[in-house]
């Protein structure tokens, strides 16, 4: 137990390091926000072409396309950033030559894994919530303030899914030294079957049936129900109950795959190579 606590006590050091590094890249820090803002502006024009009556209703209320798409875009971006950063965290250490120095300290591999993404896991959902609020204010979207907390919890339940998927991709990257292509295709497929920019009902029925089990799609629908349909806690908890097992399963598989990849590198003596 003491050993576990000692390892947990190391996590703030990773967060401090990453915040310091992130602050040294001020332009990059702002680029996510600007990128999302640009996308929302584009979709605000697209919204003028979309017949709102073809969109699903939430809590019996007809929503606008911008309200529909803003939630999808924010969650899509959140998943993309999480995946990209988790998958690339260890590779980044490998590329900058710090991985061996990290692994030479008396720190558990799991701590290095969690620590390397701790700041991302904390900051990305927080930023997603803030972005959603900012978009609602700027474009006058009709979000229910009472739905903010349930929506935030639904988003949080998606984090282990992104983390697990990111770790699995990270394992592939550590092994094969390349992985951005796989990551791009994976993100695009998840986005396609997520209902982020169009209703899932427009997909072919077989793909729509699969997409029902896409954790990103479940989270996006959960957030919409909470913010746009005032569905309250019962709906949010039902979504979380569906989301959490999928997320935890993905996380467990990701941890296992990543560990196998690191063990392989250690056996081969190629941990520090890039």
């Amino acid at each position, binding site marked *: 137990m003491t050993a576990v606590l000692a390892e947990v*006590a190391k996590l703030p*050091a990773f967060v401090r390091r990453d915040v310091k590094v992130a602050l040294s*890249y001020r332009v990059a820090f702002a680029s996510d926000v600007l990128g999302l803002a640009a996308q929302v502006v584009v979709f605000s024009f697209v919204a003028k072409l979309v017949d709102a009556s073809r969109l699903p209703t939430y809590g019996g209320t007809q929503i606008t396309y911008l309200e529909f798409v803003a939630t999808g875009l924010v969650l899509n971006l959140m998943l993309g950033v999480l995946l990209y950063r988790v998958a690339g965290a260890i590779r980044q250490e490998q590329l900058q030559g710090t991985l061996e120095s990290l692994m030479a300290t008396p720190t558990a591999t799991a701590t290095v894994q969690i620590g390397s993404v701790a700041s991302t896991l904390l900051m990305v959902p927080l930023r997603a919530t803030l972005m959603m609020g900012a978009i609602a204010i700027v474009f006058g979207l009709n979000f229910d303030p009472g739905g903010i907390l349930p929506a935030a919890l639904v988003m949080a339940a998606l984090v282990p899914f992104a983390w697990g998927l990111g770790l699995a991709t990270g394992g592939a990257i550590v092994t094969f030294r390349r992985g951005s292509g796989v990551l791009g295709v994976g993100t695009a497929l998840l986005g396609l079957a997520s209902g982020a920019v169009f209703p899932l009902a427009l997909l072919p029925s077989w793909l729509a049936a699969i997409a029902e089990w896409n954790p990103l799609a479940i989270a996006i629908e959960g957030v919409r129900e909470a913010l746009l349909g005032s569905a309250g806690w019962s709906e949010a908890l039902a979504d979380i109950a569906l989301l959490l097992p999928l997320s935890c399963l993905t996380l467990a598989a990701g941890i296992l795959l990543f560990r196998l990849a690191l063990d392989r590198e250690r056996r081969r003596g190629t941990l520090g190579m890039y």
Partner: protein
Amino acid sequence: MPVAIEVEGLVRRFGARTALAGVDLRVEAGAVHALLGPNGAGKTTLLRVLTGLVDPSEGAVRVLGTDERGRAARGRVGLVPAGDRSFYLRISGLENLVFFARLHGLRRRAAFARAREVLDEVGLAEAAERPVGGWSHGMQKRLSVARALLTSPPVLLVDEATHDLDPEGAERIRALIGGLASGGTAVLWATQRVDEIRGFASGVTFLDRGRVRFAGSVEGLMAQAASRRYVIRVRNGRPGPLVADQLATLLAERASVAPGAGSDGEHFRLEPADGIPLGSAIAALADGGIDVLACRQERSEIEEAFLALTGDRA
């Protein structure tokens, strides 16, 4: 002194390639032990095994009397890696050290205090708050040493710490490490620079293609191939330029002679015959009216030994 590092029959294979082929090594506490060898000898692999970054294929590795290779073992070994790309370049030296100190289990305040102490020890206190990316090679190397000192480890592994430093920077690092050894730290110093181990290391293990070619004292290594080739600078007491043939005539059977680099008529290579003292050859030249102005070994004994042990490949 107790043995701090003990390696017996260590084998490490990477696929079909054998990087270490039955290496034995002993380093006592308080000693600087040189791990000498050309590129690809297996020095870095051996250090990686000792740090726990690479598992051995066969053989026994004991550090501080235990063959445990887990996290606790890593905490007792300090590593100064070969490259200088082992820091987060966007943040300061102080922040880097605080981060690594915390991974060694120090609390935040203690980590800051210790980081400042070691930065001061290696002479980097003034640069502490600047991003490491703007530091010179030598400064980053000293930072690497500072990181290894964070927990005052009883065993320190140093990989090619001075190979790209200027003489002053290299001397500074050696002085730092030498000081630690005097305080009881066992130091394993991997290098291919033969000139730096004399007067610094007490013992040496010479590795070549994963095998130990020599293990013993630095003096013992030098005795492997005592240098018998000299470069002499001479002045002709008589008019006219000197040629090697004139010197050869004077030396007769005592030594062979050849023009030195540049064939400037002043520098010659001299190799006394077996059993003939150098002084005897020089006296023969002086008797013939040749003033010997300077004489030095063409290569140091240690360099000769290096070349002899690697079969002149290096």
